[in-house]
C-alpha cells in the first residue's frame, strides 16, 4: 500500500511538472504580449516594465524561475489585476468552487442512486421509463442552458431563490442544481445498469429464498454491491463538474475559480490562466488518486499491488 501510494504520488508530481512545462511554453508562443496595447511607451519604459516582470531574460531562465517559484506555490503576478498574486487570487476563490463542486457531486450522486435503483427494481414499468427519460435529459441538456432556465424560472419568475451572487446557503442552491444534473444523470444510468445485473445474481435469489424482506434484499444485498463500481465514475464526474463550473459560476456570478478562469481567458491574463490550469490538473489528479484508493479499500477483490491497474 505504501509503495503503491508513493508511486502514485510520484506520478502525480510528474504529471503536474509536465503540465506546467507544456502550459509555460504554450503561453510563450501565444500571440501578443501584455504590452501590445501600450504603444505609447518609450523603449526605456518598455524595458523597465519587462524587467519588472522578468520578461527580458531568455526563455529558459524564465522557465527555470517559473518552476522554482511554482514549487513554492508562487505563480507570478496577474496581468489583469495590478500587483495581485496569482496564488492569492486562486486561494481566495477556490473555496466557493470547492463547496459548490462537493455539494453538486453529493446531491447528484445520492439522487442518482435513488432514482437509478428505483428504475432497476421497477424495470420495464413506467417508473423505469421515466427514469431513463430524466437521465437522458440530464445528460443531454447543456449545463449553461439549464442554468439560464433555472435562473429565469426559479429565481426571476417565481422568486423562490436569489438570482445570482454569493452570500449564504440560499445562493448555492441553484448553481448546485445546475452542476448536479450531469452527475445525477450519469450515476442514475450507471446504478440502474449495475443493479439490473446484480438483481439477477444467485445470492439475491438465495436471499429471496431465505424469506428476507424485499427492502432488506435491496438495501443489504443489491444496493451495496451495485454501488462499488460507482466509485470508478467519480473521476469523470469531477471533470464534468469542473467543466460545468466554468460557465455556471459565470451565469450565477459566483466568485470561484471557474469564473476567474473564463475572465482570465477573455482578458489574456496568462499567469492566472497558467496557475488555474495547474490548479485544475492538481485537483483532478487528487480526485483520481482518492477514488482509486477508496476503490481498493471497499472492494477486497481488488488488491492494490505495485502495478497500476
Amino acid at each position: 500500500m505504501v509503495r503503491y501510494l508513493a508511486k502514485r504520488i510520484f506520478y502525480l508530481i510528474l504529471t503536474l511538472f509536465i503540465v506546467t512545462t507544456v502550459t509555460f511554453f504554450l503561453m510563450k508562443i501565444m500571440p501578443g504580449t501584455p504590452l501590445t496595447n501600450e504603444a505609447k511607451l518609450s523603449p526605456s519604459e518598455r524595458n523597465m516594465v519587462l524587467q519588472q516582470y522578468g520578461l527580458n531574460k531568455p526563455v529558459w531562465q524564465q522557465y527555470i524561475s517559473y518552476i522554482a517559484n511554482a514549487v513554492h506555490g508562487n505563480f507570478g503576478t496577474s496581468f489583469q489585476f495590478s500587483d495581485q498574486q496569482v496564488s492569492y487570487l486562486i486561494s481566495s476563490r477556490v473555496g466557493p468552487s470547492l463547496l459548490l463542486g462537493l455539494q453538486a457531486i453529493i446531491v447528484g450522486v445520492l439522487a442518482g442512486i435513488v432514482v437509478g435503483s428505483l428504475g432497476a427494481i421497477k424495470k420495464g414499468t413506467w417508473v423505469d421509463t421515466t427514469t431513463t427519460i430524466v437521465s437522458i435529459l440530464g445528460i443531454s441538456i447543456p449545463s449553461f442552458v439549464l442554468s439560464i432556465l433555472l435562473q429565469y424560472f426559479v429565481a426571476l419568475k417565481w422568486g423562490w431563490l436569489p438570482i445570482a451572487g454569493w452570500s449564504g446557503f440560499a445562493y448555492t442552491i441553484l448553481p448546485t442544481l445546475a452542476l448536479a444534473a450531469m452527475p445525477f444523470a450519469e450515476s442514475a444510468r450507471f446504478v440502474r445498469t449495475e443493479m439490473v445485473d446484480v438483481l439477477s445474481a444467485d445470492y439475491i435469489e438465495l436471499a429471496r429464498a431465505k424469506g428476507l424482506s424485499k427492502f432488506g434484499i435491496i438495501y443489504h444485498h443489491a444496493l451495496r454491491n451495485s454501488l462499488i463500481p460507482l466509485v470508478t465514475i467519480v473521476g469523470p464526474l469531477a471533470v464534468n463538474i469542473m467543466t460545468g463550473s466554468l460557465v455556471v459560476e459565470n451565469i450565477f456570478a459566483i466568485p470561484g475559480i471557474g469564473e476567474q478562469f473564463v475572465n482570465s481567458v477573455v482578458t489574456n491574463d496568462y499567469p492566472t490562466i497558467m496557475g488555474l490550469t495547474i490548479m485544475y490538473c492538481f485537483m483532478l489528479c487528487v480526485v483520481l488518486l482518492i477514488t482509486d484508493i477508496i476503490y481498493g479499500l471497499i472492494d477486497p477483490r481488488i488488491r492494490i499491488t505495485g502495478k497500476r491497474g
Partner: protein
Amino acid sequence: MADKQQELPKDAFEPLSDGSHLDNEKIAAPSLTFLRDSWRRLKKNKAAMISLIILILLFVVAFGSALIPSMNNVSTNPNLNNLPPRIPGIDIPGFNGTLVQGGQRVNAYTGAAANHYFWFGSDYLGRDLLARTLYGTRISLIIAVVATFFDLTIGVAYGIISGWKGGKVDTVMQRIIEIMLSIPNLVVMILLLLILHPGIPAIIIAIAFTSWINMARLVRAQTLELKNQEFVLAARSLGESSVKIAFKHLLPNLTSVIIINTMFTIPSAIFFEAFLSFIGIGVPAPAASLGTLISNGQKSFQFLPYQMWVPAVVLSVLMIAFNILGDGLRDAFDPKSRE
C-alpha cells in the same frame, strides 16, 4: 410374391435427382451478418429510430438550406430588429408575431415589418433567427463529423498500436494518455484556442486534440483481449503482416466498440463547441454557432424569450437525439447489456 412386386408401376418411384435431401435440415432464413443483425435490433428500438430520423432531417435541413439564398441572409436590418416568431397561417400565441409587452400581447409586426415573416423571429440586429439557427446547426453538425473523423483515425489507430505492440511502446503511449486525462478537456481546448486564431479551424484542431482519448483507451483494451485469441494467432502463424491483421482481423471485431463510442464522442464535441462559443472564445462574429445564439438570447431572455428558446431547443434536441441513438446502438450491438 415375387410376381406381385414386378407389377408395381414405374411411376410409383421418383428418382432423387438433385441431392437436395442431403441438407434437409438447412435453415431457411438467410444468415445475417453482424451489422445486419444489429440493424434489425436497432429497428425495433422506437426511440432510437425516431432519433435517427430527427438527425437525418436536421442534417438535410441544415445543409440543404445552405443552397437557398434567402437562408444565407446574415445581413443586418435595424428596422426589423427583435421581431417575435411569425409563421404564415398559424395563429398560436408565440408564433403569430405577437409579443407580451407590459402585460398584454401586442402585434410586433407593424410599420416596415408588416409584410415580413420571420419564422423564428429576428435578433437585435434584425437578422433572421431561422437562418442563424440553421447556420449554427450546420456548425454543430460539422463539428460532429470532424469529431467522428478524429475518433476513427487517431483514436482507433492509437488504441490498436498501443494494444498490439504492448511492452514499452504501450507504457509510453498510456502515460501520454494519462497525462492528457489529468487535465479537463475543456481547459486543454481553451489553451489551444488562445494560441490559434479564433474560428472554426481552431475549434476543430482543439477538438481533434482531445476527442480521441476515450476511443483510444477502449480500443486498446479490446485489442489486448483480441490479440490473444486463436484466430489472431492463426493469422500470425500464417505469416500475415501486422497491418493486415489490424485491418482484416482486429478492425471487424472492434466495430461495435468503435461505433458505440463514436456516438458518445459526438454529443460531447457538440457540447464543447457550443460551450466555447457561449463564453465567447469559439466561433467569432458575425458567424453564429448555437452557443453564440444562446449567449445572445440570454441577455434578453426576460423580454424576448424566443431568442434563447430557439437555439437552446435545437441544441438540446441535437444532443438528446445523439445520446438516445448512442444508447440504442449500444443495446443493438451488445444485446447482453439489456437483458
